[in-house]
């Protein structure tokens, strides 16, 4: 990889994500989600995606609402303060238009840690006695997807064993979360792929290594040597990154530590108006179809983007209205 440029366009990045791809993302709920690439996938009418994520959020609500997703495998979906659940997932679940698979949050995190470390599974002791472990609720098993035909889909949802080393009782074994493609939205990436994340890195290092192909969508592509001057501040080495895209405000309406805050008004509006398919289609027509990223930013407008812009000292915006006051 080092003998050619990793730099591609947003459109080219979306083309790497084929129909049926097992896809995962950077970020945490409403923070650092690769929204610009998600919009591009919707424009390109991607189908049958299998989303596997530590936790979900607005990015998946968009993909699910647009009909791009066949399988949603995670533990949580919503918009935090700005929308209490994932209305698009809820609609598709009710209409049986999507396969949903629930693990717990820690289990999903540990599954990615396993995949990122080359372990086929990992042992944990969470969520015992809950319906998350109900064998009747193995939804991918019920759909006949655990037959080994896709080598990245585990043949079982769970297995249990006794601790054979220390005798500390029953252990849940969760399978590695293996993905085809990871898309990361981060602050800075070097020309050779070195990633420097600002603030909490969530599960980005694990998510990156769990996938065969990693695409990094960065606010800025910066000279590699600048990042290598202080390597201890970097989170992901360049050789784990296959493609890089420069895309300012590429995570909007989710937030980017040090660059911009969450656009709560946008998320509230999305949540309120996309309960129905007609509502989603109208929203997508207005904000996605027929626009490219520059046109999207132009439509948002400079005053709105400046309001969201983070204080350079505080890493969040002091101008946004978050509550009633």
């Amino acid at each position, binding site marked *: 990889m080092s003998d050619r440029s990793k730099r591609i366009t947003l459109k080219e990045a979306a083309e790497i994500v084929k129909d049926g791809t097992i896809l995962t993302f950077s970020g945490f709920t409403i923070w650092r989600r690769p929204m610009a690439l998600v919009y591009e996938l919707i424009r390109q009418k991607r189908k049958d995606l299998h989303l596997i994520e530590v936790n979900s959020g607005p990015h998946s609500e968009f993909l699910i609402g647009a009909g791009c997703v066949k399988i949603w495998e995670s533990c949580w979906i919503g918009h935090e303060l700005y929308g209490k659940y994932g209305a698009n997932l809820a609609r598709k679940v009710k209409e049986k238009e999507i396969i949903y698979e629930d693990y717990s949050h820690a289990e999903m995190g540990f599954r990615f840690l396993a995949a990122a470390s080359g372990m086929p599974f990992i042992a944990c002791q969470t969520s015992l*006695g809950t319906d998350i472990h109900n064998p009747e609720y193995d939804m991918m098993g019920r759909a006949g997807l655990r037959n080994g035909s896709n080598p990245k889909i585990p043949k079982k949802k769970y297995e249990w064993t006794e601790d054979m080393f220390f005798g500390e009782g029953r252990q849940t074994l969760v399978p590695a979360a293996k993905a085809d493609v990871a898309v990361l939205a981060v602050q800075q990436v070097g020309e050779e792929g070195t990633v420097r994340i600002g603030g909490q890195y969530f599960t980005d290092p*694990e998510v990156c290594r769990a996938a065969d192909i990693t695409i990094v969508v960065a606010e800025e592509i910066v000279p590699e040597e600048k990042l290598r001057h202080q390597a201890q501040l970097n989170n992901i080495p360049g050789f784990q990154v296959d493609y890089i895209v420069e895309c300012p405000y590429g995570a909007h309406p989710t937030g980017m530590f040090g660059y911009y805050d969450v656009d709560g008004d946008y998320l509230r509006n999305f949540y309120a108006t996309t309960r129905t398919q007609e509502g989603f289609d109208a929203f997508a027509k207005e904000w996605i179809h027929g626009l490219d990223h520059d046109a999207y930013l132009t439509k948002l407008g400079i005053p709105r983007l400046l309001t969201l812009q983070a204080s350079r000292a505080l890493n969040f915006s002091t101008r946004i209205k978050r509550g009633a*006051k």
Partner: protein
Amino acid sequence: MSEKDFAKAGDFTLADLMTVAAAREVNDHEVVFAGTGMPMVAIMLAQKTHAPNLKLIFEAGTFDGRPDVLPTSVGDPRCEDGASRASGLVEAFSIAQRGYVDLGFLGGAEVDEYGNVNTTVIGDYLNPDLRLTGSGGNPDINSFAKRTVFIMVHEPRRFTKNVSYITSPGWRVKKWPSGEFISRKELYGGAYRGGPSAVISTAGVFRFNEDTGRMYLDTYHPGKTPEEIKGMCQFDLDISRVSGETPLPTYDQLRIIHEVLDPEEIFLPKVKKA
């Protein structure tokens, strides 16, 4: 009126009362795992009053945070202000599974008599009436912490005989593959640390019988009676151990909530005065 006086009716909201009740569950020096919303305000209130040495953990990966400005969610840059370390989720849950966490604050859509909580679905999981957010870290924090406190809206349909789906484990849980109910302690074995210690609802504060794991009413909020609250539960609520009315907020606590912690009224609106 003095800062230490209890507020008079009309000077505080139900949300204020619940936040103060939640803050009271925190002991000094404890490691506390915080969720988004009212729990965050409650923990930060405890941090600024009786528990200045508590250690605050945010699920997304921030440890021993002392935020200056109220975060709107655990992924928020505001969490990291004053923190000892900002990292990621695998580290947060590894620390929790290792046994560092004393107390977790959680929410729920439904709860049963044994403290099993549902945040996943209303109706049959396979044919749902309404799909909700899903578990998030609710069952994890609940499994790993020594105590968990749930904060909930109180409606009869939410305090139910059987939750639609056990997202988060109570004191009597399911043993798979049969699904028969057994005690949490028995199922968890070596991984047992504790379980739900309180439910703070919009009607009262509830705790759990040490032997049976059944819920009982501890205190009732002003304006409610134990009998009335019993009528707001689909199970047979034990009201034989009621200790009294839920203590009211003090003016000092109200000042900290509204002037220091949440002046923007993100989670806690101020009392509207005519």
